């Protein structure tokens, strides 16, 4: 492998690296992709796996919606074990203030071509009978879905391999230099361009980027088919996701095809240990029971943690390292990387080939944080 020159060397085989490998290889590029562990490990294996349109900012909405449509196009090709389910998201409003947010969100999505339905209290309860009584209403986003991310990453890598991509796992890239990457086994892989898709380890390979670890906990239950029908998210989720300083929890549950329920979510900066933190786990499950009291009677079978790769402005870094023509970034996707992987790969490939992407790449260019690079 070390003697062959590739058109592109991708560092990281999480969902983002996997999507880049497939997109580049399909366009005829000779691709090598390397991962220190495995295909679809890291945050890809730890996350929930939602395919959602999110409107935290216009740029986030554009990338998530574009990516969601790319997933919908890919859906007929996805094998059964990817478990793509278009279950829809319901944003749950606890009070009138949150119901105003439901109406704002409804207008925002509708004006951008995303179907939504405003739910009154009774209709919400019909859709999700296990929610407690007394919620004001909610917003149904029917095109949102969920999938099983490790199998999705494996599928993307297999598609890349069918187009000639070479995959190397179990070896660590220690340096990304111009024209090649250096490996922990002493080898190197030469290539025309290098793509850093290394998630939380991206800053170790590209100086000057601000990507921080944001720890999360998840719980999965035994199988309870019919207990939950949609992905449910509290509207306070955005308040939680926005809080950059303190630990936070928010109600977010997903039905899986097996009938299992995935229960989240928590957010912690500065937590380096991957051990389960029982204090925040308890808070997270209490929050879940405030929304769905019957969750307390379910059997949980596993609890785990993971680290999101978070940027200061909540947008990923997609595009060239400033001042560098051969090294690129596809990192910092925080909690939305499963959704935004396909859009990331598509606009990065367009950019590299000098074509105008279908959505503007500018909001995600690493140069938007050029000050930090200047000081690096």
């Amino acid at each position, binding site marked *: 492998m070390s003697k062959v020159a590739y058109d592109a060397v991708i560092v990281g085989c999480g969902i983002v690296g996997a999507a880049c490998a497939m997109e580049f290889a399909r366009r005829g590029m000779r691709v090598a992709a390397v991962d220190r562990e495995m295909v679809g490990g890291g945050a890809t294996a730890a996350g929930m796996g939602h395919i959602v349109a999110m409107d935290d900012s216009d740029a986030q909405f554009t990338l998530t919606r574009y990516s969601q449509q790319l997933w919908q196009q890919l859906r007929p090709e996805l094998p059964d074990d990817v478990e793509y389910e278009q279950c829809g998201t319901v944003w749950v409003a606890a009070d009138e203030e949150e119901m105003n947010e439901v109406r704002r969100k409804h207008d925002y999505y509708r004006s951008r071509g995303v179907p939504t339905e405003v739910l009154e209290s009774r209709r919400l309860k019909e859709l999700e009978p296990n929610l407690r009584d007394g919620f004001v209403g909610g917003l149904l986003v029917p095109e949102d879905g969920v999938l099983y991310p490790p199998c999705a990453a494996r599928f993307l890598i297999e598609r890349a391999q069918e187009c000639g991509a070479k995959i190397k796992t179990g070896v660590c890239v220690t340096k990304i230099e111009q024209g090649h990457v250096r490996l922990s086994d002493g080898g190197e892989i030469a290539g025309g361009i290098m793509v850093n898709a290394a998630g939380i380890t991206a800053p170790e390979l590209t100086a000057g980027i601000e990507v921080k670890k944001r720890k999360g906990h998840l719980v999965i239950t*035994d*199988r*309870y*088919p019919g207990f939950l029908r949609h992905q449910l998210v509290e509207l306070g989720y955005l308040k939680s996701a926005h809080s950059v300083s303190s630990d936070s929890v928010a109600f977010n549950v997903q039905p899986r095809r*097996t009938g299992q329920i995935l229960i989240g979510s928590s957010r912690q900066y500065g937590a380096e240990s991957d051990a389960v933190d029982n204090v925040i786990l308890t808070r997270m499950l209490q929050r879940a029971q405030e929304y769905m009291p019957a969750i307390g*009677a379910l*059997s949980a*079978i596993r609890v785990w943690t993971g680290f999101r790769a978070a940027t200061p402005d909540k947008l990923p870094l997609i595009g060239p390292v400033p001042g560098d023509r051969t090294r690129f970034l596809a990192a910092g996707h925080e909690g939305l990387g499963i959704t935004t992987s396909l859009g990331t790969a598509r606009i990065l490939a367009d950019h590299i080939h000098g074509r105008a992407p279908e959505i503007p790449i500018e909001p995600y260019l690493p140069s938007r944080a050029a000050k930090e690079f200047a000081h690096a």
Partner: protein
Amino acid sequence: MPSQVTVMVNGSPVAVPAGATVAAALGSAGQPSRTSVTGEPRGPLCGMGICFECRVTINGTPHRRACQTFCEAGIDVRTEE
């Protein structure tokens, strides 16, 4: 105290000695306890509440461990998920 109790396993009566576990009733009835995600039959393995292979629905509550539950007269045991 009667020497035998009768429980319902998937709608059929099964008589077991008083004090028997639901796992014993399943054994008498010749029933597996559940079906795995990939469709394989599962039955009591450890018999002491650790392996969770013997989960059944009892009186409508799913995922009760048959080996940790005593038979009471007339309880409704379901092995389908």
